[in-house]
């Protein structure tokens, strides 16, 4: 009986959701005749995703504990580990410089645990930690990982399972550690719900545009004359390309640059998983990490472990072809040398004020906002990236959020101290100050804190963008099911580089990609 009634309720919710979705679509389509495309899209998002959102646990932070109480707890809990030194390996960029210079010393002062930092490039972080874990060397107590790498670790149990660690050491859980408050956490759990990484950052990959150009009356006037519609942040790629064409005025200004440039480099692979495949609909529907058939961004079916359409994959789909085509279309509007650039150089182009619009990693916003390092301080704004007009549908991810966190290698010499550090990074003691300095937070309670309002404009409106839980849903992280990140990435970027170089047409490239990925998956033992 109970089963029946529960099923009924379930079905009712389901029907309601679908009805709302259809209704939303209908309303949206109808509104499309009258309203601007941007509003339509936003309406679609609001009407459809609200339902998903209400089904998940309501996100409410537990009332923050008074600071003194927390400080007392930290001093007490860390006593057994006082005097140890943990070695932390992390990527060398602003957020981690902040941790090294501000949060780290505070941690040492409170707990007596010293931190020995090693900050280096993304590639070297990967190489060093893989060598460390594979050999069980035990050099690093804690490593900072993009969570797409964590998938590789869990396949052989190379990381500490935080859930287990919490069961064994309940006394080490900070009283303010509230899983519901930490919004990127779902992406740091494996399919069984175990926490494998404690997120330290949430950086969506957003669209960024120059307000001084987009709001100039003269530019607006010229744009309307030329294209017949208003100049505004685009909702669709065709609009984005119009704007790119409009603003391409060499040698001082160019129309657009992707977040990762177009060099034949691993970054080309990232860019496709993160931006172009999802926003062109190549990675299917579903905004939650589990369960999904298609790996978000990767177009690989997790049931059949194949990327071909006939097996439920998506890498040779028309959507994937469209993604490659779209990528090739903006290249002429990018600054010269885009084919020699990766994220570093792309960020430099944006900071130098050489592009009117771009896709950007929001890690860079604190640099853009610093007038000593950038020419666009105070002159940029971020918003949701555009999507493909034909293939993107609501419920499909639009972009990517870089959720990096601290993992503990299985051979870590001080897992408990490392666990304390991972919690301290996002402890309410630091979180607000950190958000102010480097525009990231992983706590809803901090994100919604009015103290961030004055900084919102400085960082181009990134806080108001991600405060909206619905918009946040559309930036998905990489689920941890992806093992073997490195070998697959290699196949991705070498194949895509052929299309960028013009050796393969987009269609051929997509077919080749699906074929090569399937071959590699077999080699890696997935089938």
């Amino acid at each position, binding site marked *: 009986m109970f089963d029946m009634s529960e099923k009924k309720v379930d079905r009712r919710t389901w029907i309601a959701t679908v009805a709302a979705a259809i209704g939303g679509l209908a309303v949206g389509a109808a509104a499309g005749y009258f309203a601007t495309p941007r509003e339509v899209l936003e309406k679609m998002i609001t009407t459809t995703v609200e339902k998903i959102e209400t089904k998940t646990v309501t996100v409410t932070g537990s009332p923050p504990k008074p600071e003194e109480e927390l400080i007392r707890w930290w001093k007490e809990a860390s006593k057994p580990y006082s005097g140890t030194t943990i070695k932390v390996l992390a990527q060398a960029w602003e957020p981690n410089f902040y941790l090294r210079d501000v949060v780290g010393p505070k941690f040492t002062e409170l707990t007596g645990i010293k931190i020995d930092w090693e900050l280096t490039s993304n590639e070297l972080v990967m190489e060093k930690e893989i060598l460390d874990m594979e050999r069980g060397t035990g050099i690093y107590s804690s490593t900072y990982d993009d969570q797409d790498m964590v998938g590789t*670790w869990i396949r052989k149990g190379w990381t500490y399972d935080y859930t287990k660690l919490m069961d064994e050491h309940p006394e080490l859980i900070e009283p303010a550690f509230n899983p519901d408050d930490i919004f990127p956490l779902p992406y740091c759990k494996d399919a069984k719900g175990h926490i494998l990484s404690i997120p330290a950052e949430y950086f969506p990959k957003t669209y960024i545009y120059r307000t001084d150009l987009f709001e100039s009356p003269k530019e607006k006037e010229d744009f309307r004359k030329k294209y017949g519609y208003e100049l505004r942040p685009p909702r669709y790629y065709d609009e984005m390309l119009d704007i790119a064409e409009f603003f391409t005025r060499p040698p001082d200004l160019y129309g657009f640059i992707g977040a990762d440039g177009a060099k*034949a480099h691993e970054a080309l692979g990232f860019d496709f998983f993160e931006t172009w495949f999802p926003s062109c609909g190549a990675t299917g529907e579903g905004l939650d990490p589990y369960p999904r058939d298609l790996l978000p961004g990767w177009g690989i079916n997790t049931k059949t472990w194949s990327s071909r359409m006939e097996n439920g994959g998506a890498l040779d789909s028309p959507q994937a072809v469209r993604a490659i085509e779209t990528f090739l279309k903006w290249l002429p509007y990018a600054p010269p040398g885009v084919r020699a650039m990766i994220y570093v150089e792309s960020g430099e*182009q944006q900071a130098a004020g050489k592009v009117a619009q771009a896709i950007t990693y929001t890690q860079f916003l604190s640099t853009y906002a610093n007038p000593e390092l950038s020419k666009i301080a105070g002159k940029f704004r971020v918003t949701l990236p555009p999507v493909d007009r034909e293939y993107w549908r609501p419920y499909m991810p639009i972009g990517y959020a870089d959720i990096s966190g601290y993992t503990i290698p299985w051979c870590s010499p001080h897992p408990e101290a490392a666990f304390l550090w991972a919690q301290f990074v996002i402890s309410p003691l630091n979180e607000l100050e950190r958000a102010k300095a480097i525009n990231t937070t992983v706590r809803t309670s901090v994100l919604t804190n009015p103290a961030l309002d004055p900084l919102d404009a400085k960082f181009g409106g990134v806080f108001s963008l991600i405060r909206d839980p619905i918009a946040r849903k559309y930036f998905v992280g990489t689920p941890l099911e992806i093992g073997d990140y490195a070998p697959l990435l290699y196949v991705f970027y070498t194949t895509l580089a052929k299309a960028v170089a013009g050796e393969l047409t987009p269609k051929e490239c997509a077919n080749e990609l699906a074929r090569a990925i399937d071959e590699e998956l077999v080699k890696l033992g997935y089938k």
Partner: protein
Amino acid sequence: MRAVNPWLLFLPAFIVVGFNSFLPIVYAAYLSTQRFYLTGIEAKFIGYDNFTALMFDETVWRSLLTGAAFVVTCLVIEIPLGLVMALMMFKESKLNRVIRTLISYPILMPPITVGAVWLLLTRPDIGPIPNFLNQFGIVYDIGSNPFHAFFTVVAMDVWYWTPFVILVFVAARASISPEQYESAMVDGASSWHIFRYITFPGLRYALVVVLLIRMIDSLKIFDQVWILTSEGPYKATNFMSIYIVKTAIGQLNVGYGAALSLFFLFIIIILTFVMLKLVFGRRSSS
């Protein structure tokens, strides 16, 4: 005098070099028989399959060809240039000594620094060279044009190593006895004849030495290219060493990477052996 055992004298050095030499090779040989990714899959013995795969791997042959093209291009530029420069500045004068000191600075720079400097010079957006060429309407882009990428690496190598070629030729030229020239002058020989019959034969040994050493060094070029273009557009600068590191560390395919390393080492050893026979043959047999 014969009381001392030569082995006793050589042994410490032998141990240190052998430790660094034999163990990695043995270990690489073991790895090369495995299907082994550093991503947590159990290593599996597959015999010589990695080597078979290598023989049919298009990229291997392509990168060896790229390497050969690179070596030839570099030598064709460096040796005549070095020869001409050396003949201009071999005389012992104060000015020449200053010039020779100045020109030798690239040789002592670390390779990765060389790559970084050249990246700074040739980056299409902020590099002075592309910007300069742009004034004349020439688009110079090492990221999209395979020829530009390839020739930038060649230019870098010429910049880096021509000073070495010059110094070798200067040393060799200085050791030709002046009497030969004097008697040729007395006979009224033309300058071409002097070069053809006195200078060139005197430099022939140096030429062979430079050719072989530069050949081996250019073939295993790595650091500079890794920073400058990596594999480059259309894999234009995907030299063997780049491919090996991309395979073993980028792709984490350690087993295949080890097979590639051994294969590459084999080629280098053969070349070294040829060099030894041609250059040092007389000395080591004496």
